[in-house]
């Protein structure tokens, strides 16, 4: 047993050490602290995007520059979508709002707006020196129609594009030019792509179209967000329709010229680099490494269009100011900073989201990223485009995806009758939306 | 029954020479014992004969046929391992029968041979048992039964009794001897126990450090050991005293052992003189040399006594049935029972 005296002494020594350390620390701080300046304005920026550590670090870097420029100290707080929603609601209800700026996907902002949690940004006027892309403007307009206010400023975007190995341009089918493809003209259709793939196959003997149909691939997005929209005008509404049958016929045909290993690919970067394929459709994030490695080899194009239009999914992130937020002027300054072409270019290079202002793309220095940005710009700027968002289905998202993938497997891979498959699956699809009480997109 | 010849057989394991240029001849039907301390190479020789080792150089002949490169299984040898190597997952019957089944003998023949071998070894009641149900002695019998059931041309035994307790060992060795006499199989038996060797052997090869020191009958190696090692290894441990050869005999300091015809060239040679305890007498013998000594210690072995005697500072051991009377004793040694070895070469010096 320790004697009581020793215990007491030990405690006394520990306390003494702590006191001395505290006094010394305070003294050092007093002598070395920075001189007082004008009061620093601090604002909170909560975001559902850019949460991964590397992306956060980039944001901190970016916001340090913003501080040097404006003297506004921004704290970047990555939050889950649900957490932000709860936080905003609670703060607004309590009348003590701390968050000055919110970053999130357009669908998330839509939810905030529907709850009346957002300021009208219309009063800040237009941001000069930048032209927002067609699709981005349309998303803002859509909100305005519903809520009567400007709910957000477009921040950054991601989408799916077609990446083309430049060798493929030697095999363009008659009636299609490189310019058509790159600019996304009337002639750049899914039928034209099929003709191109067929031509390549006939001339080279190789099936050089690549689709991400592997276990982790995003093929289902091609189906519901691209082909269905381009052919029927809707993602789900006309799932089983003559237009849909026509679309599946095209895909079946296209599959004949697609690389057989497509069913094992979850990202197209690697097959593109290895030249297993010349024409590939995939998400920007899943092809960017190929473009960064060999930018000279590839061209990035908008997706082809169908009879109804150029259907595509756009993932758009925007910036919004909560109702009654503190330091709104400063928050707006940050919005200006983040949408500035030079900042947008840097975001594209560092985190793989693409600019929403057309002036940013020329400012991108990495040639691979620039090429994708050009493709994205062309796609988002196209007049005939039908941009859609991925329907927010929560727990039913898996079932929704599975229906399109099953249709692909049975129609394209197993060669089952199109009508029969679609009729069989349609009730399941309708049931999902019925259960969620959502209109079919 | 074959005659086995080893011709200049050597075996190296890396830099270690386990067997060093050994030539041996084992007669047909003979029980030949390889005797030596552990590590002397006796087991290696047995394994070479069995075909489990290939000699580094030299040849092995069975009845004049070179079998050096013949696989073990084709040599027609039966072997009893020190560990018995009775296959643990088979019943005794199957242990004995498996080698016969491999030879594709008819079922009736196999059964007959298994039962006959079992009868010979007195293990008929154990045939349906598994090895883990057997005692050491029983396992040893199974191993022997398995070896003789194949009707081998040569029976090889590698210290088969070393894992048995003393009493069982004496019994088992008698049985092996009887069995060998009955079957007349050329048998090579490895042991480090000289008593066992003498009890069993027709002839013994005494080995040391990979070399054969002496080959001979029990009497030969006992009475005329060719070198100090054999003299020391065979029989109860010999008394050794240092001495010098003179023209009248061997001077061992406290006595002179007289020899009549000492060759001139031997005079002055330093020698080790060996006298077995049983060759030292306490009562007078014809032509014996007399020594005077003092009794230091008496070990009573019931049937005889080992008496430790100080003779002018040298300690000698005598084995006798007589209990010495008093401290001061007279000892008698016969010159013909004295073994004289060159101190340097340790080889026997023939002197009479």
């Amino acid at each position, binding site marked *: 047993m320790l004697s009581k005296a020793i215990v007491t002494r030990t405690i006394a020594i520990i306390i003494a050490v702590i006191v001395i350390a505290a006094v010394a620390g305070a003294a050092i701080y007093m002598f070395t602290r920075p001189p007082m300046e004008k009061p620093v304005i601090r604002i909170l920026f909560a975001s559902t995007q850019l949460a991964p550590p590397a992306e956060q670090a980039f944001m901190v870097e970016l916001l340090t520059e913003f501080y040097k420029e404006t003297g506004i100290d921004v704290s970047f707080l990555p939050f889950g979508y649900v957490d932000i929603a709860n936080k905003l609601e609670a703060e607004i209800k309590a009348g003590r709002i701390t968050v000055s700026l919110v970053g999130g996907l357009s669908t998330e902002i839509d939810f905030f707006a529907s709850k009346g949690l957002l300021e009208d940004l219309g009063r800040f006027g237009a941001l000069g020196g930048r032209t927002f892309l067609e699709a981005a403007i349309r998303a803002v307009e859509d909100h305005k129609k519903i809520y009567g206010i400007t709910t957000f400023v477009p921040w950054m975007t991601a989408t799916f594009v077609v990446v083309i190995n430049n060798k493929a341009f030697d095999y363009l089918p008659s009636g299609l030019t490189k310019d058509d493809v790159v600019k996304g003209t009337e002639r750049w259709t899914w039928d034209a792509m099929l003709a191109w793939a067929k031509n390549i196959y006939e001339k080279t003997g190789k099936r050089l179209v690549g689709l991400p*149909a592997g*276990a982790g691939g995003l093929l289902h997005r091609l189906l519901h967000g691209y082909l269905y929209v381009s052919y029927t005008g809707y993602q789900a509404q006309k799932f089983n329709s003559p237009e849909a049958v026509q679309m599946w016929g095209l895909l079946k045909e296209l599959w004949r010229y697609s*690389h057989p290993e497509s069913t094992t690919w979850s990202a197209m970067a690697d097959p593109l680099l290895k030249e*297993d394929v010349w024409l590939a459709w995939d998400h920007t994030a899943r092809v960017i490494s190929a473009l960064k490695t060999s930018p000279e080899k590839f061209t990035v194009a908008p997706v082809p269009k169908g009879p109804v239009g150029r259907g595509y999914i756009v993932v758009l992130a925007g910036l919004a100011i909560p109702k009654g937020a503190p330091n709104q002027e400063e928050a707006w300054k940050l919005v200006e900073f983040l949408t500035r072409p030079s900042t947008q270019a840097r975001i594209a290079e560092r985190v793989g989201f693409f600019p929403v202002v057309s002036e940013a793309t020329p400012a991108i220095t990495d040639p691979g990223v620039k090429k994708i940005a050009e493709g994205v710009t062309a796609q988002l700027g196209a007049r005939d485009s039908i941009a859609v968002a991925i329907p927010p289905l929560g727990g039913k998202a898996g079932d929704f*995806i599975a229906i399109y993938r099953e249709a692909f497997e049975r129609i394209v891979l197993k060669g089952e009758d199109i009508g029969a498959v679609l009729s069989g699956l349609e009730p399941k699809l309708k049931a999902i939306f019925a259960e969620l009480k959502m209109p079919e997109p | 029954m074959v005659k086995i010849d080893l011709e200049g057989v050597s075996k190296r394991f890396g830099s270690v020479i386990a067997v060093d240029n050994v030539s041996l001849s084992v007669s047909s039907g003979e029980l030949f014992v390889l005797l030596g301390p552990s590590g002397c190479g006796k087991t290696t020789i047995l394994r070479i004969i069995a075909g489990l080792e290939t000699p580094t150089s030299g040849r092995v002949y069975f009845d004049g046929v070179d079998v050096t490169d013949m696989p073990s*299984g084709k040599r027609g040898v039966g072997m009893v391992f020190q560990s018995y190597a009775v*296959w*643990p*997952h*088979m019943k005794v019957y199957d242990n004995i029968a498996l080698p016969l089944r491999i030879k594709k003998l008819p079922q009736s023949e196999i059964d007959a041979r298994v039962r006959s071998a079992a009868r010979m070894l007195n293990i008929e009641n154990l045939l349906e048992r598994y090895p883990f149900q057997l005692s050491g002695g029983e396992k040893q019998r199974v191993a022997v039964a398995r070896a003789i059931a194949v009707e081998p041309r040569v029976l090889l035994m590698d210290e088969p009794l070393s894992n048995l307790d003393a009493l069982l060992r004496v019994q088992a060795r008698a049985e092996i001897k009887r069995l060998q006499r009955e079957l007349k199989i050329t048998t090579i038996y490895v042991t480090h126990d000289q008593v066992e060797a003498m009890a069993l052997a027709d002839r013994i090869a005494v080995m040391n450090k990979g070399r054969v020191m002496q080959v001979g009958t029990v009497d030969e190696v006992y009475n005329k050991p060719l070198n100090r090692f054999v003299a020391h290894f065979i029989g109860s441990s010999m008394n050794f005293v240092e001495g010098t050869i003179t023209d009248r005999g061997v001077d061992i300091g406290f006595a002179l052992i007289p020899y009549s015809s000492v060759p001139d060239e031997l005079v002055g040679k330093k020698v080790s003189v060996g006298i077995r305890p049983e060759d030292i007498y306490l009562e007078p013998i014809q032509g014996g040399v007399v020594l005077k000594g003092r009794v230091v210690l008496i070990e009573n072995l019931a049937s005889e006594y080992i008496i430790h005697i100080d003779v002018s500072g040298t300690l000698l051991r005598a084995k006798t049935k007589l209990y010495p009377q008093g401290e001061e004793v007279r000892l008698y040694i016969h010159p013909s029972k004295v073994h004289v070895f060159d101190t340097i070469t340790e080889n026997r010096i023939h002197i009479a």
Partner: protein
Amino acid sequence: MPSPLRKHIPYILVAPSLAYLAFFISYPIFYTFSLALFGNPSPMVEVMTSPRLGEVALYTTLIIATVIPAQIVIAIFASLFFLNRFRGRELVLYLFIAPLAINEVAAALIWYTMLSSSGFLNKLLINTGVISAPIYFFGYEFIDRTLLAIFLTEVWRATPIVFIIIYAGMQMISRDYLEAADVFGLNLWQKLRYIILPLIKPYIQTALIIRTLFALQVVGPIFILAGEYVRVLATEVVYWYSMRLNPGVASAWALLIGLVTLLLGGLYIKLLRPSAGAT
């Protein structure tokens, strides 16, 4: 110490372990059971009547029934080989068991890269003029060859663990047993049949159980090599849990894996009961 307290001490001492077992083992297991069995419709019923069940049963059986026997046979012969002492044995041994250190997904990627249409094997064969067009192993059209690739990958990657178990077993066999077999004229095949195999039965049993357990859980390699089109029990669990966000059906499949494992394990124990005294 007073005796009533002493009587309770063992229970007090094991209590933390029991609590641990209850919380971290029993609770999840029962939770899985309830997830799998209860619901409307019951996920288990859904699984048992699912059109995928036949496909899953076929592929699972095909993979288990080819991979595991091949691994056991290869491991036995490799063990026999490595029982010989030869120059460079250690190095060859390490190379042979090296795949053990490779993650299963990495192993699948290695084989994918090697066997894909633009992979190492096809390049080699084309450059040496053996073939003029690539041989496809992957893709839905070549699903039978994909199964071969899965077989090769699994055998390559997981045979070492079987080998280590069986090699350990063989090393336990006293050299005398084998030498006795040599002396009594058993050739290599007979030694294997009559001596070695019976003696390593318990090790084969262990290897079989461990391998079956793990083979039933392989997901990553199958997704990599076959996409989602070779459906086995384990890939169904992952598919229903993480892609369909349906823990109930996932649990039902998981429960099936448990049942199959239990059944096969019992079968191995019954079939490979070690002979009396063989230990």
